[in-house]
């Protein structure tokens, strides 16, 4: 059976466009994954104006042919960078004020203060798998950390507290060559960010920005991923 020339051309064009679109998607370094907003945020009943960012916990490993190796120092550096960059993105794009990360929030105070922060960080760690199991339920206002968040005694004007978690993988040259031959996941950084109401403990926003490529050296890609991750969050009216 022979197709007319116009149909063949149309088919080729369609195939070519699909291929190009596929290549663009595959080569985009920063991928914004889903973001979910609490109904009070999406209906603009609540505006997040002032936030406190708690210390991020981002862990990266170096994947080599001999298995994964820890990168404790790089993980600490990256955690700090993610925190700062998120603060910058929220300030510049959404006009959200970042309240001074007080000694209490950074856990630099006395033992009791460090304990409070640590307990809330682990409370978020307990809640996170449940959120991730059904992220869309953030839209149904299903998740809360309880009003114990008030015990953190943060700045009275704080509307929300931001928790950042992340994990990533850097690959050695050998492992990269191995991946090219055999396949498998490449270098990446996946963040999981929860914005919690500072008065009620409800999860107001959940987003998991992801980027491909070396997580340790990412700067522009990280910024892009964070910008995309908070795209839906309504900006504060100036």
């Amino acid at each position: 059976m022979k197709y007319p020339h116009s149909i063949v051309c149309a088919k080729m064009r369609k195939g070519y466009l699909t291929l190009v679109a596929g290549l663009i998607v595959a080569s985009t370094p920063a991928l914004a994954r889903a973001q979910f907003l609490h109904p009070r945020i999406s209906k603009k009943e609540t505006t997040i104006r002032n936030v406190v960012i708690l210390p991020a916990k981002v862990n990266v490993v170096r994947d080599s042919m001999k298995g994964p190796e820890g990168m404790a120092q790089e993980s600490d550096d990256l955690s700090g960078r993610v925190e700062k960059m998120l603060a910058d993105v929220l300030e510049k794009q959404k006009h959200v004020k970042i309240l001074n990360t007080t000694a209490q929030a950074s856990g630099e105070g006395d033992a009791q203060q460090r304990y409070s922060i640590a307990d809330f960080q682990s409370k978020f760690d307990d809640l996170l798998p449940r959120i991730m199991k059904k992220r869309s339920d953030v839209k149904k206002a299903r998740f809360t950390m309880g009003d114990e968040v008030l015990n953190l005694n943060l700045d009275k004007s704080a509307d929300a507290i931001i928790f950042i978690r992340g994990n990533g993988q850097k690959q050695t040259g050998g492992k990269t060559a191995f991946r090219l031959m055999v396949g498998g996941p490449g270098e990446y950084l996946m963040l999981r960010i929860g914005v919690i109401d500072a008065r009620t403990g409800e999860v107001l926003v959940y987003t998991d920005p992801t980027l491909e490529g070396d997580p340790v050296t990412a700067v522009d890609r990280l910024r892009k991923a964070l910008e995309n991750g908070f795209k839906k969050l309504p900006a504060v009216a100036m």
Partner: protein
Amino acid sequence: MSNRKTQSLIVFALCFCVVLPWLARVATAQKKTAPVEATPPPVREEFKFGKVDLEVLEQVNLLDRRFERDGMVLEDEATNTYLSKIGKSLIPAGLTLENVTWKFRALRDPQPNAFALPNGSIYVTTGLLALMDNESQLAAVLAHELTHVMARHTYLFNRSNRKKFLTMNVIAIVGSVTPGAVGMAISLAASIAPFIVMSTISGYSRDLEREADHRMVDMMISAEYPAEEGINALKLLANDIEGEQVHLFYNDHPELRDRIAYLTSYLGSRADKITPQMELNRERTAYFRQMESAMRHNVQLSINGERFRSALYFAQRLVDFHPDSENLFLLAEAYRTLGPRSPRLTERELTNDAKKDAAKKLEKRTDEEIEREQLATPAGQENWKAHQQKSEEFYRQSLAAENPVAMAHRGLGMLYEKLDKKTEAVAEYEKYLELAPVATDHDRIQRHIENLRRTPQ
């Protein structure tokens, strides 16, 4: 390649897949039955640091600092000094190890556990401290962990893992470059390889754990601790209060009942005497006195960590030991937060399948949802009624005791709020704020009062 040759290669590759796991199991089983010689102290003299080991050391030093920075270490001087005293009594005099600085600390975690970092930092969780009955049992835990450091287990384990991962990856490369069915068969073997590697890794780890268990007995005897308390410590660990000890095929530690069995047989005639009960009771009292503060902290951590049955178990132990206002308050808190849950898991709930189901359920539902579900059942209603009565009773006892803690008023307020007794709740909250005007939860309680006043009776 001829058809015949291809066929035999496929058969070989498939045999490889089937036989290798079996061989791995046989090898592990043979190692399991091999006797372990007692040669205290368990130091690996021949161990030499390589580049890879020094990298591990650098990572764990950072981890140590992270534990401190993140508020995970219990900053209780008395508890940490006590741990150090016991730990150092187990280390042979004059023993110095390259790149080891001994540190013994309590970790703020309600899950019973202990671990050693290869740099000599030994952590015991508050959950484990609260579970032990006496100093000898704690010494057994520390002796086990000390062996891991002295025998350089972490470094050996890491070296072994790296070799296994490399082998697995080489198989995968061979599979990818070999054409046709043979390549597919090797790729299949490579995809199964992680499971083989996992089982050999855990087999190796089990051997190291077994060595640590045996050396623990030797070290306890050398330090004149009753070694049979090591076995009793394992029996306490087998008490699965939260129903979370799920058996997986690649568990690192040998099963607790196996450990109890082989240690009982190893100890055999080496046990000079079985410590009289009276002496143990005396030791228990001294231990509880020393650990009371860490145990109280652990009850609070258990409640925060939604380990309500553990909170009740440990609070009850504290009250049995010393029924003062703070311990009674903790017991009341434990009953209040236990809510509609049963205080102990049933035999059926403690089966492996039931525990797996419960873990899955816990992953999907929030604590509030589980509580609501249980409240909807007659058993849940009955539990809640009984627990709120006990809770109220213990709050009252706490307030009637010498030096009453103000927090008992807050607890009563929360209980009454849940029971919709608004006036009583407000009165208790106000009493609490009056007695503790600078409490860290002042704002939260004030907010509760305002909400209660806003809503009609």
